[in-house]
């Protein structure tokens, strides 16, 4: 089969980029453990008040600098709507929804995921800068969507 010289060049370029991108995804997933925000963990969205974890959402300390924040998103707010962690803490967010699809977005960070009812959606972030971090709902969820927010207070050590 005859292939034009230039065609060979862009075929190599195309296949090369594909290999590069798939390689980056592979390394991120298998070597660094990056996963989609919904780790296939499920919860009964209609009976959250009976769930051992989500019936009492809040912040729990795992070790000196690691916290787990279990949060329930519901029109039009988050429960709890304010958490406080010391500077340099890594927070593992586990968020679920009690009604419709919401989102959990901390502007300026990589934390930005959908909160789907029936799923435990997870992300983690290390807060190195003290200050007040705003959390927003990024998914239109109803007439009060623009009021839906919470605050993360990162206090200096």
């Amino acid at each position, binding site marked *: 089969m005859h292939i*034009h010289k*230039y*065609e060979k*060049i*862009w075929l190599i*370029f*195309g296949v090369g*980029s594909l290999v590069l*991108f798939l390689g*980056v995804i592979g390394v991120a997933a298998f070597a660094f453990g990056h996963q989609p925000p919904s780790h296939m963990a499920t919860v009964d969205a209609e009976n959250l008040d009976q769930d051992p974890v989500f019936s009492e959402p809040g912040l729990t300390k795992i070790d000196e600098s690691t916290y787990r924040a279990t949060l329930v998103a519901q029109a039009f707010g988050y429960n709890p709507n304010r958490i406080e962690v010391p500077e340099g803490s890594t927070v593992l967010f586990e968020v679920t929804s009690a009604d419709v699809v919401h989102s959990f977005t901390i502007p*300026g*960070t*990589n934390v930005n995921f959908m909160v789907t009812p029936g799923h435990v959606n997870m992300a983690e*972030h290390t807060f190195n800068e003290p200050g007040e971090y705003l959390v927003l709902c990024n998914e239109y969820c109803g007439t009060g969507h623009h009021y839906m927010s919470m605050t993360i207070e990162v206090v200096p050590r």
Partner: protein
Amino acid sequence: MSEMNKQKSKSHTSGENHTSLKTTLIFTMTLGVLILLSWFAVFFLFLERS
């Protein structure tokens, strides 16, 4: 008849050889480089924020 076919295929082949793919190459590579650059820009933004 066969003579005509021969002539026809000959002229067809020579026509193909005259097709220049230079501009196509330039456009494809420009587009490819743009895609790569924007991909890396977003990837480094992600790394920066994590």
